[in-house]
């Protein structure tokens, strides 16, 4: 019997969340700082009748996981920067072929081999744009060990519901952080499984007002075709531009038309905040610290925090609303300004947006954020 409350690393909590969500297959390749996800999966999956395989490289890791998903099992792979780059082509394949999969990227400092054990959030843009072509992707960034558990469950649910690759965008800070975690049993969670299907030859057809085709596993009796070429409703390759448009549009629309259900964020002290710190993942821990300290500093402006949990698609409408109420936004992230571009785009110049970033492998501290607040405050005087 699994103990309900455990002291876990973020990486370990991610695996336990995946198991609660129904993960039955993991394929991957060892890479720091995500390796604990493979190690725990190797131990835990056969205990629940699932399968683990260590593949020969990163590309094979995602390929085998996609193959298993097609054969009916909820599948996951995990990696870090260099491996995330290698997996990109097959992330695009999962997007166009509409194969559910969860891809964990525990970010480390890059580019290239970079600083393998140091934190970073340098893959934020890659999570959305790493694979070529216009494509749908959902990305989720957890900020605590508990969120690694709960949000992995949500990542699997979204992958199944929308038949998309979901990027679980962790970072070294959260992956290796140890905290208490409640392992909420599946029975107490909302779990989305593949439902009954009736695809009868038109495997990629959708009904009026629907964007996601039904999905049958290989071996269940439907002889259908899956391809990374643009395809017709029957799943067969086509060069017809109208059909290509219709498929490409639907793939994008299934996310944009359901964006409200996919978006998730946390707001702290935002109501009357003059300065709002925008952050996600591990950086939010420093921002929380800054928020607490700021309250105690005399003459400091009121500071709030906006933390997207779903980081792709970016919650631009909410960001816009916030910018209509506050006076200044500070974006804090472990890179040279990636989500910053999304924030600037979303607020349309309503308020100034300043930036706190790091690319040297050290972590942003509460003091770094306080210094940025002070600068804003001094400037305003």
């Amino acid at each position, binding site marked *: 019997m699994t103990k309900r409350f455990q002291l876990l690393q973020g990486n370990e909590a991610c695996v336990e969340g995946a198991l609660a969500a129904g993960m*039955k*297959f993991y*394929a991957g390749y060892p890479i720091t700082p995500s390796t604990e996800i493979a190690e725990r999966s190797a131990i835990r*999956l*056969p*205990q*629940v*009748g*699932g*399968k683990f*395989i260590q*593949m*020969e*490289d990163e*590309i*094979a890791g995602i*390929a*085998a*996981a*996609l*193959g*298993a*998903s*097609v*054969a*009916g*099992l909820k*599948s996951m792979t995990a990696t870090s920067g260099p491996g995330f780059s290698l997996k990109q*082509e*097959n992330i695009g*394949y999962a997007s166009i072929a509409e194969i559910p999969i969860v891809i964990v990227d525990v970010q480390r400092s890059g580019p290239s081999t970079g600083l393998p054990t140091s934190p970073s959030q340098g893959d934020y843009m890659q999570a959305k744009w790493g694979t070529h072509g216009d494509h749908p992707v959902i990305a989720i960034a957890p900020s605590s060990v508990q969120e690694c558990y709960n949000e992995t469950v949500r990542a699997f649910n979204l992958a199944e519901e929308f038949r998309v690759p979901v990027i679980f965008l962790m970072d070294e800070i959260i992956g290796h952080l140890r905290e208490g975690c409640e392992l909420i049993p599946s029975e107490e969670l909302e779990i989305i499984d593949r439902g009954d299907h009736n695809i009868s030859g038109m495997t990629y057809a959708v009904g009026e007002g629907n964007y996601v085709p039904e999905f049958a*596993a*290989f*071996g*269940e*009796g*439907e*002889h*259908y*075709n*899956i*391809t*990374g*070429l643009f395809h017709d409703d029957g799943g*067969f*390759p086509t060069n017809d531009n109208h059909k290509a448009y219709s498929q490409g549009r639907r793939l994008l629309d299934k996310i944009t038309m359901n964006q409200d259900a996919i978006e998730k964020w946390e707001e702290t002290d935002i109501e009357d905040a003059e300065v709002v710190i925008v952050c996600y993942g591990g950086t939010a821990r420093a921002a929380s610290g800054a928020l607490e300290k700021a309250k105690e500093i005399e003459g400091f402006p009121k500071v709030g925090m906006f933390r997207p949990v779903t980081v792709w698609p970016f919650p631009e409408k909410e960001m816009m609303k916030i910018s209509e109420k506050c006076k200044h936004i500070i974006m804090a992230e472990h890179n040279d300004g990636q989500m910053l571009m999304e924030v600037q785009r979303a607020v349309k110049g309503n308020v100034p947006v300043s930036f706190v970033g790091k690319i040297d492998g050290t972590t942003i501290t509460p003091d770094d954020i306080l210094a940025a607040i002070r600068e804003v405050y001094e400037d305003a005087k």
Partner: protein
Amino acid sequence: MPSKLIENTMRVNRLPHIWCPGCGHGILMRDVAQAIDNIGLDPDKVVIVSGIGCSSRAAGYMNYNTLHTTHGRAIAFATGVKLANPELTVIVITGDGDATAIGGNHLIHACRRNIDLTVVVFNNNIYGMTGGQYSPTTPHMEKGTTAPYGNIDYNFDIPKLAESAGATYTARGTAYHAQQMTKLIENGIRHHGFSLIEGLSVCPTYYGRKNKKGSTIDMYNWQKDNCIDVKKAANMSAEELEGKIIIGEMSVADKPEYTDMYMKIIEKCGGNK
């Protein structure tokens, strides 16, 4: 009217195929279908996985569960399908470039694991889909659009590569020797472990034209005249075998299969309850 075999095994409304006149891939695809039909496999439980290239378009024509994947990765996808559901018969159709260049790593590691996949390599000695560049099986000093002065690379012997990497069934057939090729694929599917069958194809459009191999008929006749069965070759001298290609069953070995071993781990961990 298509034959009964074609009606039973192909998506007839997807035909004719896209391959050039004279291409050997159609024959090799039919051999795969004939082998499946001869064994009497339940089509619901057959999965065809392919990569990218001329060979890999075969999947779309065959009336099974078909997965047309990314370049070089068919064997890695197939490994996931097979491990996820070992009850499925998983056949990979791939090409010389797909299997031994961009996908070479996946090939040798699947051999090493001895996972029960049947990999059929349609080898046309060239990258056909992109217009005739040299591949890892283009013979030494022959030409491709990217080897205008002759290919200084040495070519792979695919069954030998697979055997030395751990494959427990290896064979080579040709598009000309269709009956033998069918039998080799059949034996490969029946074999419980990793099977590799190389099928020498014919590419009159690029490989043939670039290397002045004559007409399509000449190229099939070349296969007839220059391929020696492995049993016959055993009694021939090295001199007699100069420039010849050996076909037939190259190796068969008995070794525990990967998914069987994994199921034992699940049992040991109590995951089967």
